[in-house]
Every structure is written in C-alpha cells, then in structure tokens.
C-alpha cells in the first residue's frame, strides 16, 4: 500500500506539470492585453517598460518556469513566513494579479472562507441527507419512498443549480421574504442574532448545492446497498438470528460505504467547480466568483493560479479516493 501511494504521488507530479502547461499555453493564446486599458497618451517605450514590469517581455517558457517557481517555492515561503514569523522569502517576487496589483494568494486567502463555508457545508449537508435516503431506498426497494427518492434525485441532478437557485430566490426571498437573496460577506458572527442572520443567508445556497450533491450520492448509496443486500454473508447474518436492524446497519452498511466513501472523495473537487455557478447566483464572493471576474478582466495570473488550484484539488482527491478504497477494502490490494 505504501509503495502504491508513493508511486501514485510520484506520478501526480508530471500530471500536474502537464495540466499547468496546458492551462498556461491556453492563456498564452489570449488576445486580451493587460495594457489595453492604459491611456493612449503613454509613449510606446514607456508602455514597453510597463510590459516588462508585468513580466510580459520574456518568451513563454521562461515565464512558465518563473510562474512554477513562484507557485511552488516563493508562495509557500511567504506562507511559512506568515505562520512562524520567519524570513525565508526575503522579498522575492510573488504572483501578482494584473487587476488588483496585489499578490494573487492574498486575494485567494480572502475568498477561501466564504467558499469553504458555503460549499463545504453544502457538501456535508448533502452527504448527511443522501446516506439515510440511500439506505432506506435500498432496504425498501420499489416502495413509495424509493420511487419518490428516485424521482427527487432525478430532478436533483437534472435541474441546473442556477435555475434551482433563482427559483428559491423568487419564492423565499422575493415572495416570502424569509431569506436574503445576496450573501453578505461583511457579516461578523459574534452574537446570537448575527449567527441567525448568517444561518439565514447560508440557507439557500447550501440547500441548492446540497440537493444537487445528495441526488448523486443517494443513488450510489442505494446501488451499493442493493449489491450488498444480495450477498451470502447477509443471509448468514440473518440465519444466525440477528435482527434486521443489526444486519442492515452493521453488516451491510459498513460494506456498502466503501465505494460510497470514494465517490464522496471524488466529488469534492467537482463541488468547487460547480460552486462557480451557485456563487454567481447568490453573489457569494468566493473563489468561483473570483475566477469569473478574473476571466472577464483578462487577469492571466489569477486565472492561471485559480484553475491550477482546482486541478490540484482534482488530482489530490483522485489520489485520496484510490488510497481510501485500498485501505477500507482489504480485498483490494494494488501491489
């Protein structure tokens, strides 16, 4: 297992490098010029100097190497400096956003809490809803509950999140006035009323994403439970005189969770991608909205860094899913 993990980790390096290269070259083709917004009165030689200052003068492979160096060496140094008060970075050049002229990672660090709160919470809620629904659907297969659950999950992943979000806003914020339609990031949670307010503004985005995630996970849970309910060991457990509760919740559930756990791990990066749309609907200023703004503003370093972070998440969670599968299921050994 250890050798497998190490092999996968080593294999992840060229994968990530390749992904970084693809994204970089794609952005390299960008017709947008960060200098396009500058006044025309600036003389050409000054403009050239400004381009140099933005780091646009060199050929692409030099800039690609520089970006990699900044991403993997300089930025972690700054991070460690910030944590422990050391001085590894020593004033080295960081990745600078074209739009705000501030380090990309500072902006990202400001945005991460909102995304993690809304998206992370919705994933947790989604999983917590999906597991019991999947279990009950499988145990009572073809009952009205199962049929209803199938229908709801079909609707859950057919209806796009931007429509569910808009629909919820129309119903709950415009007509009923229960929840605010815009997520207020400046809200400080320090007492009970502000906590209630925070819960209220999180309710709708969390519900939208949770429905979407629960729809998929509950299907997997149901299928996996059904697979296991037909196995011989279930009959043995029943034959030993165990109650149905013990059979289902102890024997079957534990075994059915193995593939579901990997599906849950695989879904995490997709959630971040899907959050782009939900954040846009509810005006949550998280990572997804940052990406959209950066794309519209031709902010190449920001887009590159954000997209690469999404890619890292995908690769890392693929790895976690594969390793978890091997750890949880002793029948699966990769070596």
């Amino acid at each position, binding site marked *: 297992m250890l050798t497998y993990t190490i092999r996968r980790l080593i294999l992840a390096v060229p994968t990530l490098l390749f992904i970084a290269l693809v994204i970089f070259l794609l952005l390299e083709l960008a017709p947008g010029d960060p200098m396009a917004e500058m006044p025309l009165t600036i003389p050409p030689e000054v403009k050239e100097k400004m381009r140099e200052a933005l780091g646009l003068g060199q050929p692409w492979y030099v800039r690609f190497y520089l970006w990699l160096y900044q991403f993997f060496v300089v930025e972690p140094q700054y991070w460690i400096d910030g944590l422990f008060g050391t001085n590894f970075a020593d004033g080295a050049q960081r990745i600078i956003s074209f739009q705000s002229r501030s380090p990309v990672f500072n902006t990202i660090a400001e945005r991460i809490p909102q995304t993690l709160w809304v998206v992370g919470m919705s994933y947790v809620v989604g999983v917590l809803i999906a597991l019991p629904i999947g279990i009950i659907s499988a145990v009572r297969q073809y009952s009205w509950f199962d049929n209803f659950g199938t229908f709801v999950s079909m609707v859950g992943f057919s209806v796009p999140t931007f429509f569910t979000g808009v629909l919820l806003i129309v119903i709950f914020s415009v007509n009923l006035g229960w929840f605010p339609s815009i997520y207020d990031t400046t809200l400080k949670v320090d007492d009970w009323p502000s906590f209630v307010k925070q819960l209220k503004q999180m309710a709708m985005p969390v519900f939208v994403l949770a429905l979407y995630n629960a729809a998929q996970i509950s299907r997997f849970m149901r299928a996996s439970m059904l697979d296991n309910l037909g196995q011989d060991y279930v009959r043995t457990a029943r034959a030993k005189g165990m109650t149905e509760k013990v059979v289902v919740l102890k024997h079957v559930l534990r075994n059915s969770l193995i593939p579901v756990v990997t599906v849950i791990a695989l879904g995490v990066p997709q959630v971040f991608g899907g959050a782009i749309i939900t954040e846009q609907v509810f005006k949550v200023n998280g990572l997804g909205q940052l990406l959209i703004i950066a*794309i519209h503003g031709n902010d190449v370093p920001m887009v590159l860094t954000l997209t690469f972070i999404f890619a890292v998440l995908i690769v890392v969670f693929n790895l976690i899913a594969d390793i978890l599968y091997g750890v949880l299921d002793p029948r699966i050994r990769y070596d």
Partner: protein
Amino acid sequence: MTETTQTQGTIPVRNQWWDVWDQFKTHRGAVIGGAFLIFITLFVLVGPYLWQVDAQKLDIRNKDLRPFYIGLFADVKWSWSRPLGTDHLGRDIMANLIQGGQISMAVGWTAMILSLFLGTLIGVLAGFFKRLDGILMRFTDLVLSLPLLPILLVMMLLFRDPLRAAFGPETGIFILIVSGIGITSWMHTARIVRGDILAIKEREFVLAARSIGTPPRRMITRHLLPNVMSPIMVSATLGLASAIITESALSFLGLGFPSDFPTWGKILFDSVDRMASFPERVIWPGLCISLTVLSVNYIGDGLRDALDPRIRGL
C-alpha cells in the same frame, strides 16, 4: 390449413430492436420523457410557423407585459397577442423561447454527437490496437483531471473574438461552444467503449472473423461497433443532457451567445436582474431547460434497462 399450422409452429422473425422497444415501453418515466422530448422538439421546430411573431422585434409600446395567467387574475398590463408577456424591450417571450430552444437544442445535439464521435473513436482505437491503448488512456486520465468548467470558460473568452471574426458572430460562437463542450466531455464514453471493445475482442466470433482475414477497418465497422451500440446510446442521452446544461451554464455566466441571440440559458441570465418584479421571465426558460434535461435523463434510464439483455424479456 397447412399454412396456419406452419405459422403457429414457427416463431415469427423479429428484429431485436422490437424487444428493446417492448422493454422501453414498460418504463413509465422513459415513455413520458420521450413524449416530452418529442413535444419540445416540435415546439421549437414547428413553433415558428404557428407562432409568427418576430422574436427580435422591439415593441416599446408593449414592453413589460405580464403573461395571461397573471393578467386574468390581477390588474396588470397584459394582452392575448403576447400570451407569455414581453421583456423590457417589448420582445415577445414566447417567440424568444421558441428561437432560444432551437439554438439550445441544436447546440445540445451537435455537441453530443461530436463528443460521442470523439469518445467512440478514442475508445475503439484504444481497445482494438494494443499499442495505442496505454498512451490514449493516459491521455484520457489527464483530460479527466483538468478542471473542465474553468477551462471551458477560459476557452470561451479566448477564442470568441477570432472565431467571431472568421465565421460571423452567430456561427462563430456556435462552433466555439459546440467544440468546447465536445472536447471536454468525450472521456466517459471513451472509457466505456474501450472496456466493452476489450471484452468483445476476446469472443469467438471475432476470432472467426479474423481467421477469414477480415482487415481491421472492417472488423471494427462490421463486428465491433454494432456490439457497442447500446452503451454508446446510453451515453448519448447523458451527453445530450449535460451539453444542454453546460451551454445554458455558459450563457448564464455571461460567456455564451451574444445577447441579441437568445438561448434558454441566455434568456434566463438576462432576466435575473429583474426577477423580483417579473419572475415568469426566469421561470419559463428555466422550466424548458430543466424539463428537457429531466426527460432526456429518464429516456437514458429507460434505454439502459431496455438495452440490457439481462433485464430484457423478464
């Protein structure tokens, strides 16, 4: 007399697709989904001939009309000639839904066919030719670990202007969106097709075909492709659903078609700002997208059961 006994004794020859159809009919959701898909396709194809209102015509006098079902019960501005109301420039919403539907469906179908073609091609090549297997599947894994939605957004931004200049505003964006969705969604089809090809390749009839000297090209077209039709058809339905959703998501994020060129996602996006006073402008296009995707997903569900020989005939 002899003739009748003969026909009773022999089972009439039946195409296997009739069995598939019989099984498909038993899936209620799939039949309803199929009926709705036919309805919405007719709506967008025949609709313009029955509802001859120009979707782009500005009619400021009749702007912000409400739909008839609100007008009948409340005191608002409405008219029978604009049953679903008009937008802030007086454009008819019904005509826009029809025109937008044409484009959304066209994008969905074309992108699905493109992604199916790419997926089948790569899957067949990887499954049939051992030398290509490793490299093609590594490539598939790499593409799968790309963050697809951000990359699609970036592609929209980068190639919008060059393609618009080359093919005109509408065709250019159409080509861009279709190829963008196509080349970011072929991977699952490729994996499924490769797996099936690998299994079928070991069967006796393939050995027999090889023994009489069938060249690889005919081997693939005559013997392998017909046998992987069913997974391809199922992933076609999934592909159509996800292509329609992706296109409307792109339009919703403001990176799809230009605004005088409606698609369902675009109409929805344009109406979001004023949805507090005119919720119907958001709900109709949203319902069109959701119901179409839902029906396509149900058809896929039914097809999966119908094409599975283990379930069929039970």
